[in-house]
């Protein structure tokens, strides 16, 4: 049985007299420990898909269809029980790590907060230890000291590591990463992707990677979903999609990915 089964997922915004769909009838399956890449331009509905799974859609948006997570129908779940899953069994990593971290609290506090929210009766001390361990696991050097630092004292890449540590602290079965590398420098992007792949290998968590950048998905995901205007235009294994893109839109996206020979040409010309 797959970990996550999505059928006919539709997300719509209520306009004055009609609904504007941003995700229209999405279907996909994600096996345990699988890695799915959802690719599309901005406005293709990929971020709304992730928020719909988390049950965090903005006010005015509605979702219909079915989202089954480990045998539980999430769309029918009362908010209290959804909250128990959110952040514990499904964790999320956002695009901009600086604005996604609260500037008023140390990173340790914010990581520990995620852990304590789902483990009743955990002392501050234990939670702090968990936070340090999580930070070590994402290769933040000197974690025992840096746990008391504030987000602004970290670099962009390090902040995203903190976000990943936060997601890892509860040992989730599914991690949703929404454009985790978009706000980062190119060299740092590669490191974060490597880290995500490593985390998946070590913990066995399934991963949904949402991005507009095919190059990013190609490194991590084994299954691909290409979205355009709220609909899936192409799906298949990563190898299939890359070697034999059937939809013109996918081909256009693929053409936008810089190839090694292109890069060399560019380097010469500059």
């Amino acid at each position: 049985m797959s970990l996550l089964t999505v059928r006919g997922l539709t997300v719509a915004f209520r306009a004055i007299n009609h609904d504007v769909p941003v995700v229209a009838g999405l279907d996909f399956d994600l096996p345990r420990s699988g890695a799915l890449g959802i690719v599309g331009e901005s406005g293709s509905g990929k971020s709304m898909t992730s928020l719909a799974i988390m049950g965090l859609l903005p006010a005015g948006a509605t979702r219909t269809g079915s989202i089954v997570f480990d045998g539980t129908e999430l769309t029918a779940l009362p908010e209290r029980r959804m909250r128990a899953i959110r952040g514990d069994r499904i964790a999320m990593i956002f695009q901009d790590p600086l604005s996604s971290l609260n500037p008023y609290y140390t990173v340790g506090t914010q990581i520990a907060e995620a852990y304590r929210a789902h483990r009743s009766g955990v002392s501050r001390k234990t939670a702090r230890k968990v936070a340090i361990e999580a930070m070590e696991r994402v290769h933040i050097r000197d974690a025992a000291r840096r746990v008391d630092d504030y987000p602004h004292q970290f670099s962009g890449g390090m902040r995203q590591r903190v976000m990943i540590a936060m997601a890892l602290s509860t040992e989730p079965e599914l991690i949703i990463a929404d454009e985790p590398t978009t706000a980062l420098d190119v060299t740092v992007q590669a490191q974060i992707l490597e880290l995500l792949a490593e985390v998946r290998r070590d913990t066995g968590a399934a991963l949904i990677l949402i991005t507009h950048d095919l190059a990013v998905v190609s490194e991590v995901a084994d299954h691909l979903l290409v979205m355009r205007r709220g609909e899936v235009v192409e799906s298949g294994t990563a190898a299939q999609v890359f070697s034999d893109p059937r939809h013109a839109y996918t081909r256009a996206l693929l053409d936008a990915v810089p190839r090694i020979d292109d890069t060399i040409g560019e380097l010469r010309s500059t």
Partner: protein
Amino acid sequence: MTRYVVHRVGGMILVLFLVCLFTYMVFFLLSPDPAVQICGKNCTPERIDQIRENLGLDQPFLTQFLGFLGGLFTGREYGGGTSIIECPAPCLGYSFQTSQIVTDMLVQRLPVTAVVAIGAAVLWLTAGVIGGLVSAVREGRFADRFIAALTLGGMSIPNYVLALGLQYVFVVQLQWLPFPQAVPFADDPGQWFANFILPWTVLAIGYASSYTRLTRANVIDTLGENFVRTAKAKGLQPSLVWRRHALRPALTPVVTIAGMDFAGLLGGALITETVFGINGVGKLAADSITKNDQPVIMAVTLLAAFFVVVGNMVVDLLYSAIDPRVRAGAS
């Protein structure tokens, strides 16, 4: 952090010095000759010269200013011959019209003004924060619009109009409150408290209106922040999301501004104190203006500047303790 504090305190002292100099200069240049005022009707030019000499008014500006500054730190003496008046530090001058040392006059009035300011601040912060929160939670609904209309009204009515209106309704017509008269707290706490109800309300309404708007805007902004979404994604209880992640960032600036406004009020709530006949610093200033008692007016100006500048600094330092980003930016 230490460097930041030293830097701020240095800046504060400079501003205070400039305020002193500027105020002193304005009064030196503009005010009518105090010697003539003191001398009264049966005056001879010799007598005026005598007074000038006694007061040091024949000295050049810089000497007089330094004398004033010196008085602030070490105290000074006024007059000459048989009638020497001792003015201990911090000496803010001598009021010839009331024959009192200005510092004593201020010290007497300051507690009254503090009572006015504290009561009003408690009221406006409570009302402003609650009003702002309600508006933010019910954004765009009836409650929000109703509160918005109230705040516009609250900001538009000049406080003396409000003061007279409320006094007419509650004291003259309904007689719910006694006619204001100065009663020491120990004699009759009930009456004492009743006297302050209207001044507190009048002062608080204007501030509460702008605090409501500020709180509303801040809360709505903060709720849209990405870190609030992160907090929700962690599966935190809504009460925790609000308390830790929305309210603290949203209310910190509100409290900061409250600190500055409070400090500003300590320099005297001029209009409110005058209308209600409260013997605070503000009424002292207003009375001195009518009597043209320059040393007192100048002292109140300096006192008010002192509170504003010190208040700003304290708030800045507190803010840097609360908001880690400021600390980083400063060092």
